[in-house]
């Protein structure tokens, strides 16, 4: 099946306008919470600057910090694995599953495992994982992917959740009470935690100087899994490294405020070594990150701490939904990360933006997201991932606009044409502008013509 482009999928999303409004307003509410939270921190801009500089420094010295981290982690008793891509990452995990004859797996939220399509891979091998983040569990029941990296089921209303739980958990049909529904999920997940012999988690920050790592959740589900299971596998993209534990003071203050407007996530759990009898594994994944690190214009996209503030502020994201982006990480940050992995498949994404710049302003680590969107557009066109129609149109436009006499003639001719044959421009089929908007008036005189007549000495 052909994957819909962002524009096609968005058009479909918007067909239900009241739901689009609800989606927009829900995420705008989160953006406003973020703003209020920011106003409680006078040194906010300074924190952003530090967060950006620490990450810049880390990316420039990544090899050393990764080696330091691996040494310390190993000394703590953590088993460290390296994976060049998603396939290797998945293989590492299935090997551990096989060696330990694991039957029951719980997984807390990890966008990396979404990126590597771990669930799909394990499912194809007959192994089931249970996502324990509430939002992720909901989309898992529905056989969907997360539509947002922090709020995976934000595209769903409580009525949708109620129907899903009725089908999968046997809750009362039509009972939309959030308290009732979360209690049902809680009881369901408790049994999964108790039964699990493997817990897979993500990593928010890996600290080079200690060899430990931090996982942030609001539901405590990473802890429930890791504390109960005899094996813990934590998966991280290699850009999660920070040099020192004290740097957490910068990032933990920014992360939750940027994400949801909370001062801090409910659980910021520090893992440093396996408890007695437990195995703790860490999979460090590249999957295109080295390539991105080598792209001067795009390397600093690796500073991302996955707060999703850029999603919540993006006027396009709010009105098109995460699934329109057809990638694991959607939204503005996804649009500058995913063309690196597959430029052809994701060629439409850097164009799914008005370049309004709000994403760069909310970014807690100061990634110049909208500028990178612009640069991806140039690269995508120069690599030829653009329709021939668009190419011809742009060439024609560039030709006319670089020749003043031809421009004046064409402008006059076009205006005359619009006056004579307005129905041609008023074609909802041929002219996307006209589908839902009136054309500007075709005037008799341009400013240049007026100036010639009235001002020119």
């Amino acid at each position, binding site marked *: 099946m052909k994957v819909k482009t962002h524009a096609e999928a968005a058009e479909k999303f918007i067909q239900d306008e009241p739901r689009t409004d609800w989606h927009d307003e829900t995420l705008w509410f989160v953006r406003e919470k973020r703003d209020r939270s920011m106003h409680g921190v006078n040194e906010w801009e300074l924190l952003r600057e530090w967060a950006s500089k620490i990450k810049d420094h880390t990316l420039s010295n990544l090899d050393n910090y990764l080696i330091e981290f691996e040494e310390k982690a190993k000394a703590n008793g953590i088993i460290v694995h390296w994976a060049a891509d998603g396939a290797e990452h998945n293989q590492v995990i299935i090997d551990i599953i096989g060696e330990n004859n694991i039957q029951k797996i719980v997984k807390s939220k990890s966008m990396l495992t979404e990126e590597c399509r771990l669930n799909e891979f394990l499912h194809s091998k007959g192994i089931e994982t249970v996502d324990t983040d509430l939002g992720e569990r909901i989309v898992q029941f529905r056989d969907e992917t997360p539509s947002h990296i922090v709020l995976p089921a934000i595209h769903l209303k409580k009525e949708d959740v109620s129907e899903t739980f009725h089908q999968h958990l046997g809750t009362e049909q039509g009972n939309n009470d959030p308290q009732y529904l979360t209690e049902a999920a809680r009881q369901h997940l408790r049994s999964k935690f108790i039964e699990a012999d493997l817990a897979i988690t993500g990593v928010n920050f890996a600290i080079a100087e200690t060899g430990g790592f931090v996982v942030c959740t609001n539901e405590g589900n990473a802890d429930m899994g890791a504390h109960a299971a005899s094996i813990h596998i934590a998966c991280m993209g290699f850009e999660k490294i920070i040099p020192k534990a004290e740097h957490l003071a910068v990032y933990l203050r920014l992360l939750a405020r940027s994400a949801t407007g909370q001062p801090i996530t409910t659980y910021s759990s520090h893992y440093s070594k396996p408890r007695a009898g437990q195995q703790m594994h860490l999979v460090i994944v590249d999957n295109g990150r080295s390539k991105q690190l080598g792209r001067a214009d795009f390397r600093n996209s690796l500073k991302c701490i996955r707060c999703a503030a850029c999603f919540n502020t993006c006027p396009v994201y709010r009105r098109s939904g995460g699934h329109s982006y057809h990638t694991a990480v959607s939204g503005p940050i996804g649009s500058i990360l995913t063309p690196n992995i597959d430029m052809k498949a994701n060629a439409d994404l850097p164009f799914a*933006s*008005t370049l309004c710049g709000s994403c760069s302003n909310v970014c807690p680590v100061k990634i110049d997201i909208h500028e990178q969107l612009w640069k991806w557009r140039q690269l995508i066109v120069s690599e030829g991932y653009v329709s021939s129609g668009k190419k011809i149109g742009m060439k024609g436009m560039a030709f006319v606009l670089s020749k003043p006499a031809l421009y004046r003639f064409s402008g006059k001719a076009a205006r005359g044409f619009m006056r004579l044959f307005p129905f041609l421009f008023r074609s909802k089929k041929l002219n996307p502008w006209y589908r839902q908007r009136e054309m500007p008036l*075709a*005037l008799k005189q341009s400013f240049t013509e007026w100036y010639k007549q009235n*001002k020119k000495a």
Partner: protein
Amino acid sequence: MKVGLFIPCYIDQFYPQVGIATLQLLEKFGCEVHFPMNQTCCGQPMANSGFAALSAGCDKNFVKNFSGFDYIVAPSGSCVLHIKEHLYDADEGTAGHIRTHIYELTEFLVDVLKVEKLEAAFPHKVGLHISCHGQRGLHLSSMSELMEPSFSKPEKLLGMVKGLEFSKPKRPDECCGFGGTFCVFEEAVSVKMGKDRVAEHAENEVDYITAADTSCLMHLEGILKRQGSSVKTIHISEILNSSIV
């Protein structure tokens, strides 16, 4: 003070009254205004679509037309930002001078001409649309995402207009969805964004929506007219140039 007047292509073709108001306004403040007759476009439509490589012809023509001025002024934040960020030419001396001496009209009035008083009157309720490139690109006003002191150059000027009742939409600096070629390639999202902007202004019962960017207004105007709304659009230069009746 020798000022080169840059009237972006779509203003030239569809909104000559914006060019006229800008010219008259600058002359009122004693500027020696020249309008180079062979100007066309800044090249932004191509560049923002990924075809920056094709805008060399526009760049060359721009440099040829706008050399030798103390300042270049345009009634469009977006086009000015494009020139500031992306104008390059073999004649780097001239291109560099242009990049650093080109101003959007309201920032030129506030920062260079230091306008503190206007002889203008516009007895209507006006909603200000903040255009993204003017705000986040040229920093014409403070931004809701940042911790920074609040200010607004367009608002300051509108405050000097007699009889004008000023209003702000609920989300004061959300994008209108025009976005250059975005408006046709992502038509559905573009129009939805525009409809939402318009609705907030309509809620405030404004007579006019104004902005420092004609492109945003062209998009909003198209939506308002299709809706049969009584709300009109007007460029800020036309308000600032309106005379006392």
